[in-house]
C-alpha cells in the first residue's frame, strides 16, 4: 500500500468517525438495533404468542389446539380452590425462600465485603462460584440422600444422640433445597452493594456517636437494600417457576405453579391452560418488579 492509499483510508476513517460523533443518534441506533431486534423477535413475540394461546382451547381427544377464543382457562384457574391453593403455596414458598436467603446471605456478604482480607475474599468468591458449576440436578439429588430415611441427616443425628427426623418429601425439604440452590445468587448482589459503601461513610457514622448495631441499622442496611432487592428478584422468580425441585424432593403437597405448567405442557399437552397458568407468575413478578423499582433495587441488578 502506498503512502497515498494509507492517507486516503485514514481520511475516510476520520470522516466516518467524525460523522458518527456529530450524530449520536446514529451511533445509538447502530448499537441498539441488533440487541433490540433479537429481544423483540426472540423474546417479546414469543411472550405475546404465549399469552394469545392462553385464550384458546384444545381438542380433548387429539389435544390439537383449536383457535376458538375463550376465557375458560382463566375462569377455571380462578374458580378452582385447588389451583388457588397452588398459587398461594408457590408465592408463599418464594417469599419464605427469599427471606431465608437474605438472612443467611447478609452476614456472609458483610464478612466478605468489609472484614475479610484480600486473599480470604478471593477464596470466598471461589467458594460461592464453584457450586454454580455443579449440575443443579446433581445437587438436588444429593439432598435426597441427605433427607431420606436413614440418610446423611438421620445418620448424623443418630451419632449425636438425637432421634430421627422425617424431612424427605415434605415442603420443608423443598424449602431447604431452594434456599440452598439460590444462595449464591443472593450473596453476590449483596456483596456488590456492600463493597461499594465508602469507608468514610461508616467512619462518619461512628464519629457521630453511633455504635455498631445502630450503624448497621441506619447506614449499612439501607445502603445494601438495592443489593438485597436485586438478589430477591432472582430468588423469588427462580422459586416461582421451578418444577424440578418439587418433582424430585417434594411430596404429595408439593404442587407448585411450575409443576402445573409443566404437566400441562409436557404431559396433558394442554398448552392453552399452561399458558393461562403462566400468566399468574408474570403478573406476580410484574408487581414485584414495580415494588423493587420503587425501592431502587433495579439500579443494582
Amino acid at each position: 500500500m502506498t503512502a497515498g492509499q494509507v492517507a486516503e483510508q485514514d481520511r475516510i476513517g476520520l470522516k466516518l468517525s467524525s460523522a458518527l460523533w456529530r450524530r449520536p443518534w446514529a451511533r445509538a441506533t447502530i448499537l441498539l438495533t441488533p440487541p433490540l431486534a433479537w429481544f423483540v423477535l426472540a423474546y417479546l413475540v414469543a411472550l405475546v404468542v404465549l399469552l394469545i394461546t392462553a385464550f384458546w382451547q384444545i381438542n380433548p381427544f387429539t389435544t390439537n389446539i383449536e383457535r376458538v377464543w375463550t376465557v375458560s382457562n382463566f375462569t377455571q384457574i380462578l374458580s378452582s380452590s385447588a389451583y388457588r391453593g397452588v398459587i398461594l403455596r408457590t408465592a408463599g414458598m418464594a417469599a419464605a425462600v427469599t427471606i431465608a436467603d437474605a438472612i443467611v446471605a447478609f452476614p456472609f456478604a458483610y464478612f466478605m465485603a468489609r472484614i475479610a482480607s484480600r486473599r480470604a475474599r478471593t477464596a470466598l468468591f471461589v467458594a460461592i462460584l464453584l457450586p454454580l458449576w455443579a449440575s443443579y440436578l446433581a445437587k438436588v439429588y444429593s439432598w435426597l440422600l441427605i433427607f431420606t430415611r436413614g440418610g446423611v441427616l438421620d445418620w448424623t443425628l443418630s451419632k449425636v444422640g438425637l432421634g430421627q427426623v422425617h424431612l424427605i418429601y415434605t415442603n420443608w425439604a423443598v424449602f431447604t433445597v431452594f434456599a440452598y440452590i439460590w444462595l449464591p445468587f443472593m450473596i453476590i448482589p449483596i456483596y456488590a452493594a456492600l463493597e461499594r459503601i465508602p469507608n468514610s461513610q461508616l467512619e462518619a457514622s461512628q464519629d457521630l456517636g453511633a455504635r455498631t448495631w445502630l450503624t448497621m441499622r441506619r447506614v449499612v442496611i439501607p445502603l445494601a437494600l438495592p443489593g438485597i432487592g436485586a438478589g430477591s428478584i432472582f430468588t423469588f422468580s427462580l422459586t416461582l417457576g421451578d418444577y424440578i425441585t418439587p418433582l424430585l424432593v417434594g411430596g404429595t403437597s408439593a404442587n407448585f405453579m411450575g409443576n402445573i405448567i409443566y404437566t400441562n405442557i409436557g404431559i396433558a399437552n394442554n398448552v392453552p391452560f399452561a399458558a393461562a397458568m403462566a400468566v399468574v407468575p408474570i403478573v406476580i413478578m410484574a408487581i414485584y418488579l414495580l415494588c423493587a423499582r420503587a425501592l431502587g433495587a433495579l439500579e443494582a441488578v
Partner: protein
Amino acid sequence: MTISRACLGSRRLTTGLALAGLALITAACGSSGGSGGSGSGSGGATAGQTVPTANMPVLQKIGKGEGKLNLIAWEGYLKPLWVKPFEQQTGCQVNAKYAGSSDEMVALMKNGGGGQYDMVSSSGDADLRILYAGDARPVNINLIPSWKNFFPAFQSPPFNTINGVHYGVSLQWGPNVLMYSKKAFPTAPTSWSVIYDSKYKGQVTVPDNAIQIADAALYLEKHKPSLGITDPYELTQPQFQAAVSLLAGQRPLIEKYWALASQEIFDFKNGNATVGAGWPYQVSALKADKFAIGNAIPTEGATGWADTWMLAAKAPDINCAYMWMRYISTPQIQAQQAVDYGETPDNMLACSYMDKIQAGSCEQYHANAPTSYFKSIALWKTPVATCDNGKPDCVPYSEWVTAWNTQVK
C-alpha cells in the same frame, strides 16, 4: 421536566408497539380456522374418525441407513445390552428420549414427531391419540419378517392397526404389578387392598399418572360389584366418582406419587416406601441390586400395557427405523428385553431363548401366555366419551386428567 416526559413518552411508545404487535398477530391467526386433524368435536367415539395419514405411502424396500435414530421410549427399553449390537450392525446411532407416561409420549409426538423423533414405544392408551392426531405413518409390515411369528392377538391389534393399515409393530406387553418389600411383608400380599389400607400410612407409593384411576376402578370391580364396573377404562360418572373417591382416600397413605421410575426404585431401597404399584422394570432393577423385593399380580387382577413401536409421521430416519423394527422383533432380542425388563414378548418363538438367558423365565413372564393370564390383565386404552356399547355417558380421558390433578393429588 425532560426526564418525566421521556418516561411518559417511553411508556406510550411501548404500549403502542405492543398493541400494534398484538393486532398484527391476531389478524394473522384469527383468520385461519380450526387446526388440523380433528373433526370429532369433544372426544367422541373413534368410529367414524379417519386417520389423517392413512394414505401415506409405505416404504417398499429398506435402503441405506441414515446413521442415526431418535427414539422416544419407556425407561428401560433401550438398554446398551441390545442397543449397542444394533448400532454396530446397522451404523444407526440411537438417541434415547425417555418418557414416563403415555401422556408425555403423546405430547412429544405432537406434529408428527416434529421432524425430530423417528419412533415411539407407546402403549395402547397413547396409540389411538397419536394415530387420530395424524402423528404416525403407515408401516409396511411385510418388511418385518418376524411379525409372522407374533401371537395372533398382537399381530394386528386394534390399537395400532386401523382398517388393515399398520402404524407400527407390536413390541411387548406386561402388567402393573404390586411391589412389596419382603422385609415389611414376610408373607406376600394377595390383594390390592394393602395399598388402600390405612395400616400402611406413609409407606404406599403409586404412579403419578391419571390412568391410575383405572386401577382403582379395577379394585372396585371386585370389591363393590354394586357399581357394575365391567371395563375399568369405561366408567360412567357414578363409577368414575367412586374410583376418584377411593384414590382421594388413599392420598394420606402416600408420601410420594412416583413420576420417574427411579424414584420408586430409590424409595423402596431407602425404606421410604414398602408397598405400591410399579412396573416390572423397578422390580428388576431392585433385584439386580440384591434388594429383597417381591412382586405379585393380586387376585383382583391388574392393569397392564401393550406397547408398539410406532413410526412417526415426519420420521427423518425411515430406513434406520425399519431396521430397528426388524431387529427388535426377532426372537433373540425379544427374549433379551423380556428377561431384562420383566415383561412378556409378542414373538412366540422368544420362549426358548428366554429360558437360555435365565432358566424358568419363559414361564415366569408368561411368554407361553395362557389365555387366562391374558384375560386377567386390563390393558391400557384411552377412555373415550362413547362407551363400547354405544352409549355416550362414559367419562373421557381429559376429565380423568383434571380429576387426577385437582381431586386426587
